[in-house]
């Protein structure tokens, strides 16, 4: 039962009827099909490609989660169920192989996320409902810790840990809220209450999602939180929860207004989303850099326009799919399938497969592009089956 609870909490956080802070969020009214585009140089001051060293030891599949520290890229790879650290120059540093951890239920995905504690220069990942292993940045296992609450967690400075947890079946008193703030064993704040054992959601209404719903903001004191069936962005700190933005989409792609509250959808939500694949059922990977909002939308159907940048001063929506490669990025890819993965407060990061990199190079062979030494070496010595390439983009910030 505990494992199921964990899964539920990992897969989706669904909730309704929250007691939200008395703050009016800014409405971001957008039509995802009308996103603008332009050359990459119009949006980014600099695009840097960092090939990750490919050796038999460092070979991995995809960048499923990325965290950028001062010295390292920390990468979770679902394919090999391992966590790899590369230096900021792309040199392989160390690798932690997780084996079958997380795959006990025949899940194709093992470890679903890791959480960095930047203050302690550690990161950890859950190995079951109640335990997590803690590593340093050299891949050494430091200790095993008990996890006081199930579900996702995120470290804030000065010992505060955020937990998110949603249970359909049980009614533990600590879990009657989706979010909890804990410090030194003391839960001192709860937000997003929900009624457990209600008849509004059935198991079939939960959309499986592997990753955590916390996304780092580039500021260690702030983290963003998103969830399914909800177009709100939640900004969390050690002592507050605010709702800075709420997104409004065209009616044709929006969920019915009572989607998360009406019993009429009990057990039918998944089917309804399959029948209406354009419905946006959630937001993901939200972060804010100055006047720019970076985010993704989640739909059942296929849509290449799924990652966006929103410019607050001009209310301009930019579809990353339509950011066209140009000479400043050597006509190479600027978007990966997972959208923007993280931010360090200055840059945003994504990753591209070597297959995509080589195909992009071949497509513009006639242009005789002069690559940077790093890329020239990568193309000369690498091949399509090499490790992915980290793409570091520095957005153009309009100074007031």
């Amino acid at each position, binding site marked *: 039962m505990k494992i199921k609870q964990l899964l539920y909490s990992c897969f989706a956080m669904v909730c309704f009827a929250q007691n939200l802070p008395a703050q009016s969020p800014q409405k971001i009214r957008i039509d995802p099909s*009308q*996103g*603008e*585009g*332009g050359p990459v140089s*119009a949006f980014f001051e600099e695009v840097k490609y960092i090939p990750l060293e490919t050796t038999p030891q460092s*070979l*991995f*599949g*995809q960048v499923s989660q990325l965290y950028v520290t001062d010295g390292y890229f920390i990468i979770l790879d*679902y*394919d*090999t169920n391992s966590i790899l650290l590369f230096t900021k120059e792309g040199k392989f540093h160390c690798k932690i192989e997780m084996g*079958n951890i997380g*795959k*006990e*239920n*025949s899940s*194709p995905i093992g470890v679903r996320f890791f959480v960095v504690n930047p203050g302690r220069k550690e990161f950890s990942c859950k190995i079951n409902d109640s335990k997590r292993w803690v590593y340093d940045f050299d891949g050494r296992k430091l200790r095993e810790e008990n996890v006081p609450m199930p579900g996702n967690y995120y470290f804030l400075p000065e010992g505060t840990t955020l937990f998110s947890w949603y249970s359909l079946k049980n009614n533990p008193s600590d879990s009657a809220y989706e979010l909890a703030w804990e410090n030194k064993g003391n839960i001192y704040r709860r937000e997003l209450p929900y009624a457990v054992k209600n008849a509004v959601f059935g198991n079939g209404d939960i959309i499986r999602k592997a990753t955590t719903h916390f996304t780092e903001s580039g500021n260690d004191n702030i983290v963003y939180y998103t969830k399914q069936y909800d177009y709100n962005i939640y900004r969390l700190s050690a002592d507050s929860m605010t709702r800075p933005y709420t997104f409004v989409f065209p009616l044709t792609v929006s969920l019915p207004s009572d989607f998360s509250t009406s019993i009429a959808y009990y057990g039918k939500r998944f*089917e309804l989303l*399959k*029948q209406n694949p354009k419905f946006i059922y959630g937001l993901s990977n939200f972060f804010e850099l100055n006047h720019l909002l970076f985010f993704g939308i989640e739909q059942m159907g*296929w849509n*290449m326009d799924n990652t966006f940048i929103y410019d607050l001063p001009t209310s301009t929506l930019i*579809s990353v799919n*339509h*950011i*066209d*490669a140009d000479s400043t990025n050597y*006509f190479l890819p600027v978007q990966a*399938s997972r959208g923007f993965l993280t931010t360090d407060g200055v840059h945003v990061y994504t990753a591209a*497969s*070597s*297959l*995509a990199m080589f*195909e*992009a190079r071949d*497509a*513009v062979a006639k242009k005789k592009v002069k690559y940077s030494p790093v890329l020239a070496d990568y193309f000369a010595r690498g091949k*399509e*089956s090499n490790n*992915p390439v980290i793409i570091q983009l520095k957005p153009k910030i309009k100074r007031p």
Partner: protein
Amino acid sequence: MRLPRWIWVLFLAVPFAGLSQQPQHTNTGEVEGIVFDSLHHYVLRAATVAIYGADSTRPISYQLTNALGEFAFKGIPVEIPCKLVCSYVGYKSTIRSFTISRQQVFADLGTLNMLAGPKDLEEVVVSYTPPVRMNGDTLEFNPNAFQLGENAVVEDLLRKLPGVIVWGDGSITVNGREVKSVLVEGKPFFGNGTRVATPNIPKDAVEKVQVYQKAPNTSNAMDSSTEVNIKLKDNKKSGAFGKGSVGYGTRERFDLDGNLNVFTPRTQVTLVAAHNNVNKTAPDIKTLLENSTYQGEGASIDYQPEFGQPGITRPLEAGFSLQHDFSKTDNFHTNRLTADYLFNQAQTAIATNTRTTNALQTGDQLIIESQNTHALTTARHQFSSRYEKKDFDQTFMILPSFSYNNNRSRIVSSAVSTDHFSTIQSQNKMENTNDATDRVIGISGGYDKKKLHTTWSFSAGQANNGQTIRSLFQSTDPAKDRLLDRNYSNDKDYLSGSLAFNFANLAVIRLNGVSLASLDAGAEAAVNTDKQLNNVYDKDPASGDPLRNNYLSNETNYSLLSVTPYVRLGKTFYKNLSFRYSRSTNLYVYLKEQLAHQQNSAGHWFQQFHRTTNQFIPQAGIRHSNTRFGKFRNELTAGFSITPGYASPGQLLALADSTQIYNMVGGNPNLQPFYKREIALSLLHSSYRRKAPFNYTIALKGGSVPNFIGDSASIDKDGQAIHYAVNLNGYRYMGADLMLRQSFNFNNQAFQVMAKLNTELSDRPNYLNQVYYVSRQWNNRAEGTLGYYLEPYLAVNISQSFSWYRSKQDQINGNYFSNALITTRACISAGITEKLTLTSNISFNNNNATGAAKTHFTIWNASASYRFLKKQNGEVRFSAYDLLRQNVNILNEGANNNLTVSTNNALRQYFMLTLTYFPRKFGK
């Protein structure tokens, strides 16, 4: 891993960016530019760019823009005004006129701005339609943009599309991947498969041809299957097409056939009828439809069945087919009824000369030569139907059917047995008249919901047979001579039923929290009953009165019940490296126990038995797939199985009938079940290469069958033989199948290579006159086919096949039997003009069998057809068959210690004039 669907779109679209349609002129101009959305400030990728002559609506060349929105054409005519048309879903088309000067031979059209708009300008739509475009994740082709004949059909269009191969055997591949079905409006079109829609539907009725991935596998785009859907124009969604054909020829040969097919958005109905005396018999409506298409036979060398069939058959066939959808069909919902009915009546006359050589343990050979005439009249009614209702997570289906068969035959035979000095040992003359009727009604079905999968079936049959056999046997020993005049009346009632259910993923077996295997459980139950009442009377030679034959007259009541519970343990390992490879390995073990009960009650005490057996029949295997992204996919399966087999009622209960003097068969009620042990391995290689894809399949198997049901024969010097089935050890076998094919396409030419190889080596134990022997048999068949197509003018198909059989019986005399049949076939079809087509095919046949004279014969057919009427609905065809008058029908059959070579009468030379009308109305 989740691989985005744009990856497979890339794989579909890239060939069209790189392999744009080649210009029709030998010109040197180049044109470049970028397609841009100036309102939203981005380039348009995969936009369609087509170049037309100023006064033409057929594109000279076309491309999809690349990832940077660029296009670049070469080979464009110079000094000729041209138009470049850009189109993109959701945008208004843009037209740019240009002329390339002979001096510059290059035109940079710069940035072409396109505006999003709800609808294209009407005049642009009418004049310039994009040949190909990406619409979301679907690649769409517009038939109007391709240079096709006025009366072209969808298949002609498919042959024009880059990356699409229409193979000589009718199958279709897109970028190396086989298209499993061609749908029309998202539904099967007059049956599943690809052979009805593509050669019948005119391009004028088609709005677009869509190519897409069915149920894309999100973890690996290359894992999913490719499907083609033909979307009809709004005013063409209903229609009718068919064929009416009358042929008459020399020797009073005639060939009539017709079919009418009517379709609406919800319903499809087919009516068919055929009547001929040229051996054209179709087993079902699907075959009739597939071989009477508007497009015609082309250079097919497979559809020449009438000359390979023994005797002369005069079939009359009629039937109907129905498909109706009660509600709209989509990926998740089906609510469909299909039904087929076919009546078949045929008269066949066969004259056969047979030579059977038997090896005896004395080192001698016994040769039986016979001449038979066989007159057969059959009448058959077949009905089958299927109702299927599918929702998101459950599927229900029910399949009622019935059949009625009546066979009336008269066989007159005269057989002589000789020893190897050609001395006559005996002779037998026989006349056999038979009237047999068989009626079967059946119903089966299935229900799937989530983890539960069930199937069931039930059928009941009744057979009646009235038979008279008169025979005169004469031997060198007059004491053995006898005259028989025997009447039979056999009535049989039989039932069969089965029920199977499976619960998938019932539990997970863990050790220390680690999943070891998933567990399925289920059971299969089957029951078969066979109740026979046989009354046999012999005419008294003296009085002529019928006397009851108390040996052959009997009543039997046989039943076989089996129950097989099982559990299945399975474990799948995945290894995935995004954008590089995806591997999965599935190990499984079936733990099955089969409990079977066989019993028979009969008037003869020696036929009575009942026995219960209990046998562990495990299966185990491995399935491994390895997909290298963009390169190939290999599927390897290997398995071990134990399969039970039970003696048939005939093997158990037959009573030796002295009228079958050279081939009496007796029953053996002591036969025990046998359990076949087999190891099988197969490898399927599917190439994803866009150019010259090379695919192959290799299958190997080997096994042994302890308790094999073999033959125990007693043959005397006169050739009188009686056979009993007996349990024997020592049967083993191994075999291999190989299939490979490759296609090379150049513009409008295609060169295809296909090869097949089948070989099987077996040791079959038997008894001959109480002596145990093993017959080592080796069967081989190899066939290679080369095809060349120059659209639309020429199709050439050449094939070489080789069949070889050899058997050796060491324990008897060490002699061996062998036969070989080598056939070389060639077919050429040439479109002399759009209306006139000449077709000719020729096959050279060489047959060589032990003890028989070598036979060589050549069959040469030729025809000329001319299409007339405005839509070429009319066809007149003159055909000449077997121009060299050499056709014979030879059958070689080897079994254990004997080899039989049969020569049958067959169709011989005739000439036929055929008039055909193809009624066609697509739309109102």
